[in-house]
């Protein structure tokens, strides 16, 4: 990695603690990622991003700020990035995915809080992640009780705007979300000092849609058998797309997709064509959480799709680009974002329909539904998902886990037994 120590020191980071993280990540990444066979050339870019994970993109963000631009940190796929980019800002997903940050969060949060929230709060309070220290504002949301209250704690640290996500999907809920987008526009305009116009929002809509289209191409390639890219690699692409520059993200994902499409034409895959195909559904896997994918793929099965916020939920729906006035564009944004099916809504039967549809599109042999420990919403919903999968004759298993390594062996046994069932 290039030398970023001065930049980190200027950000007020705890360098000593941060060094510990910098030491363990390359080893973990080497064992989990670089050891894979026949990886696409297009993954080189993402490997580079990981090797400079706390350097290259933070440096770009700081440069942007130096030039007068603003940076917004986000935590959820319901935050309309388009608004931020339309005002000349940068939006970056911040969710913490490492056990390293959990203890920092536990200093202020109850033990029965999910690891994603603990890690996110810990990364900020312990000052061990540049992404958490750079933003001029955090844009958060109330998708669960744990987050809702955690933001009140973080509000003492950094300016915070909360988007009120509806809990149901009636017409008046979509209207309410539209009003939230209007409020968000006003806030972003105030923070950046830039007015959002129909022209700038239209461009931002295309910018983010293009990133979604590129990710759709990568995922479409995973429908092929043999599958041309591992689930781990595809997950990494999505994870990095959460905070990378959207134009570059689209460009890199598109060139990766070119390569994958060529591989399909040549019948080339990274797993044999009789490999068991698994869908992972449930809660997001923030970088560097690769635990479950690594267990599954080390046992010879391929993860071919993620029904999650670090998967299809992130890019499946596009914003209508034909909207031309601000009025129409805001409505189009509200309609697009409210199509995303998260367990924070009730009822959420459309998510079950998504899983059944994806199982067919990606020709999956089994579904591993997973949630981060203490995610009450997804763990409760899992019962209904299981019921529907049983009715549809789709083999199903549910796993609750966290970022730690302590349940690794038991998870391996459970996943292996599930794969044995599917291979019979």
């Amino acid at each position, binding site marked *: 990695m290039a030398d970023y120590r001065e930049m980190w020191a200027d950000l007020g980071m705890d360098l000593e603690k941060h060094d510990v993280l910098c030491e363990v990540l390359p080893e973990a990444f080497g064992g989990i990622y670089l050891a894979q066979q026949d990886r696409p050339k297009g993954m080189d870019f993402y490997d580079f991003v990981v090797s400079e994970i706390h350097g290259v993109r933070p440096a770009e963000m700081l440069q942007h700020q130096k030039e007068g631009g603003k940076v917004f940190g986000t935590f959820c796929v319901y935050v309309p990035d388009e608004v931020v980019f339309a005002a000349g800002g940068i939006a970056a997903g911040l969710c913490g995915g490492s056990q390293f940050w959990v203890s920092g969060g536990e200093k202020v949060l109850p033990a029965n809080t999910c690891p994603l929230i603990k890690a996110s709060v810990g990364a900020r309070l312990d000052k061990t992640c540049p992404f958490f220290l750079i933003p001029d504002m955090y844009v958060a949301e109330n998708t669960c009780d744990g987050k809702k209250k955690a933001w009140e704690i973080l509000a003492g640290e950094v300016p915070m705007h909360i988007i009120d996500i509806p809990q149901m999907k009636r017409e008046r809920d979509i209207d309410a979300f539209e009003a939230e987008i209007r409020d968000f526009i006003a806030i972003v305009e105030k923070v950046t000092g830039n007015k959002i116009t129909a022209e700038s929002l239209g461009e931002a809509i295309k910018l983010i849609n293009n990133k979604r289209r590129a990710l759709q191409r990568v995922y479409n390639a995973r429908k092929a058998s043999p599958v041309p890219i591992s689930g781990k690699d595809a997950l990494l692409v999505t994870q990095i797309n959460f905070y990378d520059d959207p134009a570059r993200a689209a460009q890199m994902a598109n060139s990766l997709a070119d390569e994958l499409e060529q591989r399909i034409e040549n019948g080339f895959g990274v797993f044999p064509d009789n490999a068991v195909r698994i869908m992972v559904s449930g809660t997001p896997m923030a970088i560097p959480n690769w635990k479950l994918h690594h267990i599954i793929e080390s046992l010879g099965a391929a993860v071919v799709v993620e029904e999650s916020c670090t998967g299809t939920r992130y890019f499946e729906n596009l914003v209508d680009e034909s909207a031309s006035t601000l009025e129409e564009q805001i409505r189009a944004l509200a309609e697009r974002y409210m199509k995303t099916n998260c367990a924070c809504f009730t009822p959420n039967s459309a998510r079950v329909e998504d899983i059944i549809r994806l199982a067919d599109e990606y020709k999956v042999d089994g579904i591993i539904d997973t949630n981060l420990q203490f995610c009450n919403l997804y763990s409760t919903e899992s019962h209904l998902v299981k019921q529907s999968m049983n009715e549809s004759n789709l083999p199903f298993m549910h796993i609750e886990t966290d970022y730690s390594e302590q*349940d690794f*062996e*038991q998870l391996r046994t459970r996943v292996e*037994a599930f794969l*044995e069932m599917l291979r019979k």
Partner: protein
Amino acid sequence: MIVMGIDIGSVAAKGYIISSGHHHRTIIPTGWSPREAGQTIIDQLLDASRIERDQVERIYVTGYGRVAFEQADKTITEIKCHARGIAELYPEVRTIIDIGGQDSKVIRIGEKGQVLDFAMNDKCAAGTGRFLQVMATALGLDVSELGDAEEPGEMQMISSMCTVFAESEIIGSLARGNPKGGIIAGLHQSVGKRVAAMARRMGIREQVAFTGGVAINPGVKRALEEELGTRIIVPEACQYTGALGAALLALENR
């Protein structure tokens, strides 16, 4: 054909050798090295059946120690091995409850012994052999003595599922002068309740078999029967079911 099945569990390692209809079995404490335990099992089985190592066609290994054992021709999960073992012993069984040293499992099997569904405890020790071991120590007993020491008539309920809290609950109960036999009956009921809850989530189909080291304990069997309202079969060699299954799968080259 001569084959071996080895089940390296967290507490005990078990082995089964099948050679032209004859079989031998052996069991030893796993100790700190699952690899050494596996090697000892192989040596003991070869000795007992007067066979050389190179006469053994295949060795299948299961149990938590399977990953560390290089001599395996194939590793298979305990879940599939218990299913195969029970299908051989009791073909009419449709649900297996397996309680070992560090985990408990409920396995639903089909007519041919194939695994249809399973549930397994997560990282917590509640409802496992480890739970009983800690409690036995608190009572000044060996875990093998629990089964015969219970007095269901004087049962003292243990309300805590957590191993750490249950231990202090027992110490408190002893301090109040409650009889050991009643406390032990309460412990068995606690394990029974925990595992039965997992079994009910998956749905119980008769007949039900109980395997693993904890199945030796008649108190836990009784508690499970009461909780589930069904009779439970315990194989005579309940600890060997996984090793037997592994040996049979090796024999069938599956």
